[in-house]
């Protein structure tokens, strides 16, 4: 109750030497001042993404799924169906990649949303007040990682399938089929992950954003399955054709449907959707408080 006030240091501000070229007095650090740019943000995000275990887990499971399921389907087909009827063996890689997409989605969401869960986002934005730069750096680093990992897996499993099914009347894949089945589908998956990253930034909640993205992948197919009414046939057809699994299968030219997107169309569709989502995420990031 009766704490005597402690002795006070004198309160007048001493006269500090002004820093050169600054009207504001105070301390001047010996550390050289650097004008930062996107490159700094990219190195920072690279350090971040490789220094958490969830990255290693999601990518590890992804590799296991793509290679494991790929080998399994290859082995099953090789042992039971000796005649592929001129089909491309590359198409067998689809199943592993479809399941692996869940890992890419998870990693994409975690790249942005986990920072909101931990409060790290405040530290990040204090260090780099240009919010667009943070989002761009995250998206670029993630896109490149997702693309490279998917490309390596898809190429590996492609070679394995071709080798396993040699002499089973399988088609020898053409150059374009190779390109679509490796680079094409890898770009598509990396974009799907980047879309998840944008959704993660908008929703700011890991579990919520992952649920939304998995729903976006599966819901159209499931809904379409139960559209028995003939008046809904057009809707059902569109849901089938533009569902993400069907878009992915187009890279192997074994679409569920004969009409709808073809060739490289899925890539352009995903590019536009992801671009729009990133734009929306950026606008919200600028507008909202962190």
């Amino acid at each position: 109750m009766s704490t005597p006030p402690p002795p006070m240091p004198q309160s007048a501000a001493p006269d500090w030497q002004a820093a050169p070229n600054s009207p504001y007095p105070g301390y001047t650090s010996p550390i050289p001042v650097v004008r930062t740019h996107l490159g700094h943000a990219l190195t920072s995000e690279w350090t971040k993404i490789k220094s958490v275990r969830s990255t290693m887990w999601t990518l590890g499971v992804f590799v296991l799924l793509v290679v494991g399921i790929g080998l399994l389907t290859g082995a099953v087909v090789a042992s039971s169906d000796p005649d592929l009827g001129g089909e491309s063996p590359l198409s067998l890689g689809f199943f592993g990649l479809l399941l692996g997409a869940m890992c890419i989605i998870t990693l994409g969401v975690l790249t942005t949303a986990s920072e909101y869960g931990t409060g790290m986002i405040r530290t990040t934005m204090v260090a780099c007040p240009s919010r667009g730069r943070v989002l761009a750096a995250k998206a670029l680093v993630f896109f490149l990682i997702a693309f490279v990992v998917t490309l390596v897996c898809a190429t590996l499993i492609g070679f394995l399938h071709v080798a396993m099914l040699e002499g089973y009347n399988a088609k020898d894949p053409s150059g374009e089929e190779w390109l679509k089945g490796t680079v094409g589908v890898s770009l598509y998956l990396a974009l799907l992950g980047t879309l998840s990253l944008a959704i993660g930034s908008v929703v700011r909640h890991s579990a919520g954003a992952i649920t939304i993205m998995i729903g976006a992948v599966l819901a159209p197919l499931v809904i379409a399955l139960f559209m028995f009414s003939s008046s809904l046939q057009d809707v059902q057809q569109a849901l089938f054709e533009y569902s993400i699994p069907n878009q992915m299968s187009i890279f192997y030219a074994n679409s569920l449907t004969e009409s709808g997107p073809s060739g490289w169309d899925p890539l352009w569709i995903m590019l536009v959707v992801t671009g729009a989502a990133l734009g929306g995420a950026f606008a919200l990031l600028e507008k909202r408080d962190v």
Partner: protein
Amino acid sequence: MIELEGLTKRYGEKVAVNNLTFTVRPGIVTGFLGPNGAGKSTTMRMILGLDHPTAGDVRIDGTHYHRLKNPLTYIGALLEAKGVHPGRSAYNHLLCLAQSNGIPPRRVHEVLDAVGLTAVARKKAKGFSLGMGQRLGIAAALLGDPRILMFDEPVNGLDPEGIHWIRTLMKSLAAQGRTVFVSSHLMSEMALTADHLVVIGQGRLLADTSMADFIERNSRSYVRVRSPQRERLLDVLHGGGMTAAESGDGALEVDGSTAEAIGELAARHQLTLHELSPQQASLEEAFMQLTAESVEYHAHTGAGTPAPPQQQWGASWTKG
């Protein structure tokens, strides 16, 4: 230097920060004081460009925060929420911050050493105690060797040794000519570290004064007197030109006199005294009175004479 001009933040109907104007100067520790929920953290987040002000302006050395190209070398901040990914090691946490500002990686080792975390640099942050987490936050604030430092409730949850360390650190940073801005809801803590004081309550500025002035103006000294002959004592005191106030527990509080004068006066009139003790209202009480008045001012204007600070503070709680 941090300059706030009419800074205001509204969340819907609620005004969290109301027209704040003050300047935080270099070379001294400026305490930012207010009860919980007064708007301290919101103000700090606006200074750092995390929250957009509804109105008003805040500048760091004359520049808006988002225009700073390498902000960590201008201003280092320890925010209330830890802001660390629990799965990342202390070293990697600081490294990614250093990289985003083009700070050489050797600085990471220097600040880890400065806060005493070198031994656990490669350990994940989730295994850190409250004190270690606070030290990591301070390491991040010091990373860019900034001219301005901001600490939001730095002593929260620290042990006495840690509290002493932070106090010494803040004073030495200010002595180097840096601007040090530290928030707290503990007046006693501020009295030990701050040279200047900014007090807010309900988002409004209540005081912007030097610590010495604040102490001089707000620390009331009085003498506590207790006597079985209470009525006579009151008359005698009155006759001697002293004003006595009831303290509520049967004792009297006499302002503007000394224990010696009161004792001699009582002896001359042969009064029995059971207690005669000089008292000084603590700064904590002065602070609570200041903030409680702002609460009362809003809640029910013109409600008689102010009650003793302790009761008023409690009352504002139950009514609030």
